[in-house]
């Protein structure tokens, strides 16, 4: 609607310009006639009088241009004609254009791809709201100085009960399931999780609901949440799926929810390991064994609590547990900011890559700028001619800026396409980095600005 309005407005302005131009022309001609009348009266022949009147006015076209500058539609009008002129110039000089566009496209494309990866891996690694307060909690073995161990479920329960620093805690492990029914049974990757998962991540299912606390207990555990992909593929995107049963293994499970297409848990998992279903805790027969460290634990800090504070509290809690449970002796605990954890191994490499590729962009911009300068020098004659024909200084500068911007846009668009291809290549090489095509515009804009 808005677009239509602005279009109509600008068309009206263009139309108005034509009308104003015609009327202004009449008025200026009338002015010249009147002036010539006066000059003729002072003794000049008519032709000479008219010529002199024209000179004194300073040219009909020039005056019209100055009047036109006040019109609202003028900006659009002159930009459109500048673009047309710029394109003709590019066509006249294909080698210059090709070199400039190619240089820009390669630099922007490389930047786009690298920045997209950096953005996905380092800047926005967790696709959940307010993810800055999410932490991972690992068991550690101080004797071997190893950390990154998973945790047994009973230990998780003790942590959860005894701490005061977390708003919520949840735990999960992977679980291979097979789904029957329909034409063919299928083996799928599922994740068993405690009921707090979605609440903790602040994510809602697209359809249905998340797990309830009682579904952590055996006997209430025959429920399943489907991924969008599975729902689409196997259940034909049936919106009435909620409440229907699906055979998981030998048992009928009730579908209670379907997640949105962009939901990923655990995050940072390679696409080839796509999780298709989330199942409740009660399913895992080994969940009450204090010795089986199978669970991956994460939590959300209460507002204002730092990772260090949480670590101190968890150390104390853990101390108490070690006294009560012999199995826990010799185990420590480690709280890590989740965002820092994701991609921490690749961070230095990625930053270095980003730095290098930014330099490439700078060099490319400098190259294109010097190309433009050289061309500007070669076009001095043209500039002088245009000036003589009535183009103002500001107008000429705008013309050249428009050409540069045009070049930058063409380069940017080709860069986007190239960047997209390069990104596809990255993803094929390392399927973990699969995210966000959004930052490209930033790249394009920044490089255009640099030009």
């Amino acid at each position, binding site marked *: 609607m808005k677009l239509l309005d602005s279009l109509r407005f600008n068309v009206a302005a263009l139309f108005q310009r034509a009308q104003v131009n015609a009327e202004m022309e009449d*008025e200026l001609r*009338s*002015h010249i*006639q009147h002036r010539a009348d006066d000059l003729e009266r002072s003794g000049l022949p008519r032709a000479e009088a008219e010529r002199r009147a024209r000179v*004194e006015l300073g040219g009909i076209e020039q*005056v019209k241009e100055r009047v036109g*500058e*006040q019109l609202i539609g003028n900006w659009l009008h002159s930009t459109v004609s500048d673009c047309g002129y710029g394109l003709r110039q590019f066509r006249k000089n294909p080698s210059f254009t090709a070199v400039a566009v190619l240089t820009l496209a390669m630099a922007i494309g490389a930047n786009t791809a690298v920045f997209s990866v950096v953005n996905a891996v380092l800047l926005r690694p967790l696709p959940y709201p307010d993810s800055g307060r999410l932490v991972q909690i690992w068991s550690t073995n101080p004797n071997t100085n190893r950390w990154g161990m998973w945790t047994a479920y009973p230990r998780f329960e003790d942590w959860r009960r005894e701490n005061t620093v977390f708003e919520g805690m949840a735990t999960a492990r992977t679980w291979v399931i097979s789904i029957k029914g329909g034409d063919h049974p299928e083996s799928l990757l599922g994740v068993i999780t405690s009921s707090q998962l979605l609440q903790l991540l602040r994510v809602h299912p697209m359809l249905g609901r998340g797990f309830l606390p009682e579904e952590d207990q055996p006997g209430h555990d025959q429920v399943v949440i489907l991924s969008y992909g599975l729902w689409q593929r196997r259940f034909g995107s049936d919106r009435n799926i909620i409440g229907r049963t699906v055979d998981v293994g030998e048992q009928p499970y009730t579908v209670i929810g379907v997640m949105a297409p962009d939901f990923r848990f655990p995050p940072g998992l390679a696409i080839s390991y796509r999780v298709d279903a989330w199942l409740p805790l009660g399913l895992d027969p080994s969940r009450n064994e204090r010795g089986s460290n199978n669970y991956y634990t994460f939590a959300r800090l209460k507002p204002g609590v730092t990772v260090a504070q949480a670590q101190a509290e968890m150390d104390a809690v853990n101390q108490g547990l070690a006294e009560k449970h012999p199995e826990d002796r010799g185990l420590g605990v480690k709280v890590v900011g989740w965002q820092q954890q994701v991609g921490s191994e690749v961070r230095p490499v990625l930053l270095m890559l980003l730095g290098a590729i930014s330099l490439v962009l700078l060099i490319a911009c400098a190259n294109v700028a010097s190309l433009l300068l050289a061309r500007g020098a070669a076009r001095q004659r043209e500039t002088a001619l245009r000036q003589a024909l009535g183009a103002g200084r500001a107008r000429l500068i705008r013309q050249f800026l428009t050409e540069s911007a045009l070049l930058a846009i063409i380069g940017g668009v080709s860069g986007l396409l190239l960047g997209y291809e390069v990104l596809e290549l990255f993803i094929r090489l390392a399927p973990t980095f699969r995210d966000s095509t959004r930052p490209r515009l930033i790249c394009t804009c920044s490089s255009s600005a640099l030009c």
Partner: protein
Amino acid sequence: MAPDQAQLLPGTLDLLILRAVSLGLLHGYGILLRIGQISGNALLIEQGALYPGLFRLVRQGLLKARWGTSDNNRRAKFYELTAAGRKRLREETENWNRLATAIRSALAAQPEQE
């Protein structure tokens, strides 16, 4: 430029046009002549600058224009003041006088005597 002609200060062209038109219906060339006449030919007005100025004033609703026939029996566009134009002329004249008085007294100031 004749030696006794002064260059216009920026922004004063509008005021002069309003003043010239306030003295009677005029076409563009007539306005030029009238400004020359009332200023004793002391002000230099670039002819090409007049029309963008007129266009601007019409846009602002201070002047209105219509086509007519001139004394030379030629078609011409005539301008006259609107009510808003008269009001603006009054305000601008006061402004100008205040400014001119201030500048004149500033320039006439003598060094303080001990």
